[in-house]
Every structure is written in structure tokens, then in C-alpha cells.
């Protein structure tokens, strides 16, 4: 069966500081094709261009050169309104810093993408309660973000990302601020969403254990994709060791 392309990056280059003396090329002609139902993980050393790549793929940023296609439409030809609509209808963002809105309650935070999509009040209430129950944060719905723990806040951020049933989840270091127990609970949930509900996931992480939940790994170094690993028939443990090997070979270079 032919797999459907959901996200395509065609030779994207991102240069910062254009018009100044401090030109910096964060990405150099990077290409990626992501298919529906894939769980792609991006790894690499600090400053390699991981977040720049994910931001350019998810419409948060626009590449200096090259093209990004989402569901076959090039991002550059879309208006700001269309991109905004695309984001709240198709993408679910999860960040290391949670990025919850401090002035809204947990319930309202989760409801924002539905409010943007003009969903009616009854449906908003129902969907928010459903997703909150699924993630175990139902008891925090009337609280404000600053009244919740880090683990709860990240679960709320995931609720917000999932409430619209997005086609793609974009996660930038989603477990960066969490303890190992919470981290693995959240990754198990990602895996379940990916395997059972067919949600595509694009995730950046530093942690090889976290990366081992994915089905494909891109290793970015100095703004280019250094290598790609497909999990295919490997067990999670075997896949994990492969990821560790890549990271180790990177560290080995330090001593050569």
C-alpha cells in the first residue's frame, strides 16, 4: 500500500542575521519526507539545528531557501490566516517549557484550539473533559498553570495538543523538564497514539531512551542530516543501542 506524504522538506536552508555582519547558516539544504503515521525523532548535539529544523517544518519559521509542503501545499504560498488555521486544525505543539497560557485555567488552556476552530460550547466541554481524563489531569481543570506541578503542566500541554485530534504532533524536547517516570509515561502515550490512532509524531530529544520510542531517527549535525536510522524490525532495546552508537561515535570524535 502506498504511504501518504504528510510533510515534505525540500532542500531547506535557514540563514540567520541576513543584512548583518553575523550571518549564520543553521540549516543547509536539508530534506525530509515524513509519511502519515510515522514517528520521527530528531537528535543531534546542541546548536546542530534541531529546533530550527522542527520550527521550519511546523510553520513557526519560514526557511530562507527551499520549500516545505504540508499535505501537498507549500507553506510559503499560504497566508498568515491560512497558516494559523492549519496549525490549530492539524498540528499539536508540545514544548519543553510547556508554553501554557498563565492567565487561563487548565480547562481554558486545553480549550483554546477548539475555541479557535469555532467548536460549540457543549462539544468543547465534552472534548476537554475526555482528553483531560485520558491524560489524568481532570482534577486540575479549574486550576491555573502556576498551581500545577511540572508533570501535570506537560500533560496539560499534551491535552491541548491532542484535543483537536491533530494529524501531526510536533514535540520539541517534550520531556526536557520532566523526571524519568513522567517522561516514559508520556512517551508510552505518544507510542500508543502513533500505533493505535495513526497520529504522526515529529519529536526533538537529547535522550537516547526517549528516542528509542520512535520509528525513524534523524541525526543532525552542523545544519545537515548526518545519518538516518529506521527501526524497522528491531526491538526497542536493539534500536536504543543503535541510537547510543551514533551518539557515542559523535563523542568519540572528541578524542581523535
Amino acid at each position, binding site marked *: 500500500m502506498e504511504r501518504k506524504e504528510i510533510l515534505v522538506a525540500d532542500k531547506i536552508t535557514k540563514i540567520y542575521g541576513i543584512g548583518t555582519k553575523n550571518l549564520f547558516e543553521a540549516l543547509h539544504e536539508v530534506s525530509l519526507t515524513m509519511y502519515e503515521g510515522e514517528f520521527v525523532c530528531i537528535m543531534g548535539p546542541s546548536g546542530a539545528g534541531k529546533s530550527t529544523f522542527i520550527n521550519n517544518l511546523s510553520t513557526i519559521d519560514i526557511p530562507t531557501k527551499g520549500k516545505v509542503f504540508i499535505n501537498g501545499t507549500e507553506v510559503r504560498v499560504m497566508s498568515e490566516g491560512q497558516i494559523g488555521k492549519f496549525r490549530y486544525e492539524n498540528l499539536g505543539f508540545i514544548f519543553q517549557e510547556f508554553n501554557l497560557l498563565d492567565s487561563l485555567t487548565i480547562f481554558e488552556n486545553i*480549550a483554546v484550539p477548539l475555541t*479557535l476552530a469555532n467548536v460549540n460550547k457543549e462539544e468543547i466541554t465534552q472534548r476537554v473533559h475526555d482528553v483531560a481524563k485520558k491524560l489524568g489531569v481532570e482534577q486540575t481543570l479549574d486550576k491555573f498553570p502556576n498551581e500545577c506541578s511540572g508533570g501535570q503542566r506537560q500533560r496539560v500541554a499534551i491535552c491541548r495538543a491532542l484535543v483537536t485530534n491533530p494529524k501531526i504532533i510536533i514535540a520539541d524536547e517534550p520531556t526536557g523538564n520532566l523526571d524519568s517516570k513522567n517522561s516514559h509515561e508520556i512517551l508510552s502515550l505518544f507510542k500508543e497514539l502513533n500505533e493505535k490512532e495513526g497520529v504522526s509524531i515529529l519529536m526533538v530529544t537529547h535522550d537516547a531512551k526517549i528516542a528509542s520510542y520512535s520509528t525513524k531517527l534523524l541525526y543532525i549535525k552542523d545544519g545537515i542530516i548526518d545519518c538516518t536510522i529506521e527501526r524497522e524490525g528491531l526491538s526497542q532495546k536493539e534500536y536504543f543501542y543503535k541510537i547510543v552508537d551514533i551518539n557515542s561515535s559523535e563523542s568519540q570524535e572528541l578524542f581523535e
Partner: protein
Amino acid sequence: MGTFKFSMKMLIRDYKKSLFYGLTLVFAVAVSFVFFNIINNNQLADQSIAVGGGTWQNVQTPFSSILSFLIICFCCFMIFFANNFFMTRKTTELAVMGMSGSGYINSTMYVLYQTFVLLALATPLGLLLGRLVIPCSNAYMYERLHISKDVNIIPQEAYIYSFLLVAIVLAMICVLTAGYLHRNDILVLLSQEKEMNFHGSSNKYKPLLYVAIYVFGIVMMFMNPHSPNAYIAPTLVGVIGVVGMIRYVLPDVIKHLKKGVFLTKRYRLISISNLSYSIQRSLLLFTLMTVSVTGMMAILAANQQNPREFVTSVIGYIVVVLLLVVSIVYKLIMEAVTRKTLFFNLWKIGYTRKELKKIVKQEVIMYYAILILIPLVYILFIAGRFIYYGDMTISFAVIFTSAYVIPVILSGFLTYFEYRNAVVKPIQGGK
């Protein structure tokens, strides 16, 4: 010496953080100087006694002097308020100093060096500004009192008391600064400039109680026989109601609106949540504004036939309104800076820049509408009573109200542009 150098470097680099404080100091010194001139100017003493050879000691303290004293106290209060706000904008620097091994005394001195410098600049500037204003205020008062004297003569006491006031303020600031730094550790200092801390209200009876108090203040106006002083007690009762309404009623109303009709409104859901926070943070300024505006209305109305008191009240009213409006604008703008991340997150979720501007506009309009409406209800009732009893003309009431409403509306425009520039303009990337 290192602390002093770092302190001066940060004062210059981060001059925007000190701007409001510096301006408040200049303005407060200038206003105090003008009112010390009114208190100590023998020409402005009760003329029947002054002509008969009497001195201030023979005269019962005139109301204009009491009012001047109250306005000077108000200026001091505004300095302390600005100082407190100045401190909350310096917390990251102070936390970094703490983490770098700076002790309590060094940290305190770091702030005090900046305060000394600001006061050293503000005092002569304030006196100069006051010196420029006094001939105008003297000329106006002499004309109303039919006195022909040189308007440029300023009693020496005005200078002496102004310097004395600065010294007292400085001593108080030293105590407040030391106390602030003693109370807050590094972790608290680090979180001060970044966090918007929200807490839900829990008591369901308090809202009803404060609405009742607010309404009772209005009822009291009709219970007392009409006299200028009859409105002081109702106004004070009303202020208790206002504080309670802002603290307990407004969040409750907003909470219900957000659960109901506003849940599906993409702009209102955000703007009203931010509004709730902004108003809670401005509670003190809202209260002061209500007390000052309603109180001054009664004072001005009662002194229309006493030129000295009337002119003092007019100057006082303008000063109080301006100081409060400037403080509110500055506080809102500085708060806006802390909301950059919030608006950036909204943009990431899918709001466009145009929609974000609309959210800012809605919040600012609602904020200033509430600021106008809360005292306006009392102003209308007080003015209505005065007009009814023939103690005030409609034009006077209109001018008084306009002198309050117009600066507030103008500051609304300024706030909107600054707020928008602070939170929407920095959003880069995407489209």
C-alpha cells in the same frame, strides 16, 4: 567600588526600567515644592487677618494648607509606590548578584546607589520645574484673591521643606529597600519579573457582600442631608465596595463569562483573562483613583466660593489625576513586557498577528472603561446632588468629569500602542 560600578552600568543600560521612577521623583518634588509654596506663602494667608497684621500663627490652619499637605503626602506615597515597582523590575539583577556571591548589604547598596543618583538628578530638576510652575500658580491665585504682589517671590521655607522632604523620603526608601531584600530570597527574586501568578477565588458570599457595600455607599448619599462634607463617608464606604468588587466580584464574573458565552469567543476568552489579571495588579491604583476623584469632586464643589481653597483644589486635582494616570500607564506597559511569551504562545497555537492586536485592543478598552466607570457612578450621584441643590452648575460637573475622563482615554491610546509593540511586534518568523 565594584557594586557601585555595576549599579551605575545597569542604571544606564536599563534606563527604561528607571524612567518611570525618575519621572515620578521629578514630578513629586516639583508638586511638593509648589504646594510648600502655597502653605508657606504669607500672601495666601487669610487676608482679613493678614491685612490686620496677623501671621500664620494667628490664623486657624486654612483648608488649602491641609489639602496641600495631603497632596504632598500623596506625592510621597507615589514615590514609595514607584520605588516598589522599581524594585520588582530589578529582581533578576539582584538574584544574579546573589548567585554571584553578593551579600545582603551589597545588594541593598546596589539599589540604593541607583536611588541616590536618581534622587540627586530628580531633586534639582523637580525644583526647577516647580520654580517654572510657581509664577503661573501664584499669578492665578493672586488674581483670584485680588492681590498685587510679585509672582516670582517664593518663600525660603518652600525650598527648605522640599529638601527636608527629599531627605525623609530617602531615609524611608533605605528602610523599604533593605526590608524588601531581607524578605525575598534568590528563588523568589528570580521568579518576580517573569511569572504571572494566578489564583482562583473561593468564597462565594464575599462578592455579594461587596456589591451590597458599593450600593450602600450610594444609598448613604441620599440618607444624609446635603452638605459638602456629607459625601465623605459614603465615598469611603463606596471605596471599600470598589476594592471588594475588583478583588472578588470581577474575577467571579469573568470566571462565569469564560465558562459560558466567552468560551467560544476566540478573542474575548484571552482578552478578558488578561484583563482580570491586569486589574488585580492595579487594585491599589484603582482604589486611589476612586478616592481621589470622588473626594476632590466634593472638595471642589464645596469651595467654589473660596478662591484660595478652590485654586489649590484645582491644582491638586490635576496633579493627582496626572500622577495616577501616568502610574497606571507605566504599570500596564511594564506588565505587558512580561506577557511576550504568552502572546508568542498564542501565535504558535494559531492566532495571527492581527488577531493578537485585537486581543490587546479589547483588553485595553475594557481596562480603561472599568477605570472610568467605577468612580463615574459615584461622581454622577455626587454631582447630581450638588446640581439638584443648586451648589454646582452642569458645566462645572462636565468640566470636572472631562478632566478625569479625557486623560484616562488618552492614556488608553498610549497604553494600546505600547502594549501592542511590546507583545506583537517581537513575534518574528512564520508569516
